[in-house]
């Protein structure tokens, strides 16, 4: 059984790989003038749909939804990077090592929630004022805090998806795209959660981002701190459940690979 200190150490060293990978994918220029601009354009596009509908309440709904959903799109990239070890030839070494696979993979793709925290924070703070949402200065740290936790919580969910993608690595991008679409559709970003049938609403409640988005909406509406904290608490609870499942799933994936044809390496 891995101790918290060992887990933290594993995450820290795996995050070095994550940071190096991010440095290859983006320079600060391509991140700022490519990736960030692309996400902001996407957000503006969805927000303009709200303007087109002509309902100010819906405009607020979709502006905030589109901002928070940028974190889903970005953290879901962990599904792909989880599979990179299979192409680097390090998979066999990992399976033969004493590493706790889920803990390693949690650190292995941390570049995405880190980047998502930056993009989502900028999207949430910079774009809404153009659509009539004015943030108070005291709301800014609260919103950034919610974004940090939402990105990490969504990342916990992504870890479970990534554990499946590790087995079906050829389909990793399809798995990522379908998961992203489903999460954005039902988590209350575009339409209220209540729009969906009850069983789908229950699934939505299991998604961390649903509660993260609810917390952001609560801040925007000037709701009491208890309402914000309740949403954050539910989000963290959901994240803990997803992460636990992911840790078990990664361990199972590694264990099952031993019985098969060694297909993970």
């Amino acid at each position: 059984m891995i101790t918290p200190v060992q887990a933290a150490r594993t995450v820290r060293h795996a995050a070095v790989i994550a940071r190096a990978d991010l440095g290859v994918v983006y320079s600060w220029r391509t991140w700022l003038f490519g990736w960030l601009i692309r996400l902001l354009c996407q957000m503006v596009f969805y927000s303009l749909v709200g303007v087109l509908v002509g309902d100010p309440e819906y405009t607020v709904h979709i502006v905030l939804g589109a901002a928070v959903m940028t974190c889903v799109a970005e953290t879901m990239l962990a599904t792909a990077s989880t599979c990179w070890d299979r192409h680097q030839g390090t998979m066999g070494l990992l399976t033969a090592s004493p590493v706790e696979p889920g803990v390693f993979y949690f650190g292995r793709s941390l570049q995405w929630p880190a980047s998502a925290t930056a993009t989502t924070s900028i999207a949430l703070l910079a774009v809404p004022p153009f659509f009539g949402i004015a943030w108070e200065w005291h709301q800014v740290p609260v919103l950034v805090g919610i974004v940090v936790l939402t990105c990490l919580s969504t990342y916990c969910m992504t870890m479970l998806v990534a554990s499946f993608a590790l087995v079906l690595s050829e389909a990793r991008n399809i798995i990522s795209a379908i998961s992203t679409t489903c999460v954005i559709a039902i988590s209350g970003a575009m339409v209220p959660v209540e729009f969906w049938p009850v069983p789908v609403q229950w699934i939505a409640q299991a998604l961390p981002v649903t509660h993260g988005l609810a917390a952001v909406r609560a801040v925007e509406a000037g709701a009491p701190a208890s309402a914000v904290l309740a949403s954050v608490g539910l989000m963290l609870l959901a994240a803990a459940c997803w992460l636990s499942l992911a840790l078990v799933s990664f361990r199972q994936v590694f264990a099952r690979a031993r019985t098969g044809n060694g297909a993970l390496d």
Partner: protein
Amino acid sequence: MSALEITGLRRVYQRKRGDPLEALRGIDLVVPEGEVHGLLGPNGAGKTTLCKIVSTVLLPTSGTVRVLGHDVVTDTAGVKSSLGIVFGGDKGAYDRLTARQNLTFWASVYGITGTRRRRRVGELLERVGLAERAEEVVGGFSRGMKQRLHLARGLVSDPGVLILDEPTVGMDPVAARDFRALVGELRGGGTTILMTTHDMAEAAALSDRVSLIDQGRLVMTETPETVGDLVSAYERVDARGVPERVREQLAVLPGVVSVTGTGGGLTRVETEAPEATLAVQRALVDAEVRDVSLSRPTLEEVYLHLVGGRGMGVDP
């Protein structure tokens, strides 16, 4: 205690189409501590499957494997902490990290921390000759440099048993020679090494004993010299200027396995018994062929005799 004890090891791969493939068919092998053991065999013989089972990447279908007393099925953690692995080829390192970062990561995975980790990483980089390139990203390394890094990674946990799976595959001769020199240095350190290779010269130069494996079965386990002695019956007689008529006579002598021309007017006669060798020599002398020499088979020739004409071909 033996470093490696393999008893009745079988491994069957289930296939989506066709019959199951039995990669290992009852392997028995004991490797004492400190031995460098060469595992020779053609592609598909089962060498890599054996390495994967020993290194806990695969489960055996039946049989037992113990690494320094740890069972690969029931004590996986014990095996993992006792074992280092080095695969051949370009892959197996994080190309975007520096050599030092790669080793630091793997040291951390094996629970080596703080000052001990820094010292161990520094020592290994020095040992494999990469100290001056330690801060460069591995993606820019040559294959030989990468393989030296792989060796350092395999040693990072100071394992009792080191598995080298085709460690010099694809290397240029100079890099391969340097790598063998590094492995040679390990022999003195007491590390048990199981090394798979196609290269007979490599196996002969580095191994205390070699095992020949073919179609999932262990053909034999002996010292490189003994393997040569065992097939000393397969002597060969080389002669120059042998007339075609005499070649035909030699070919039908009892105990003559083959008569081949090897270019430059050289005729090679392979025999399977000392009496046959004498008969060949007598026939050559009678035919007034003066340029005659006897030689022992190389390990490669032994190998080809033992696994038959399939040689290095891939099993169907």
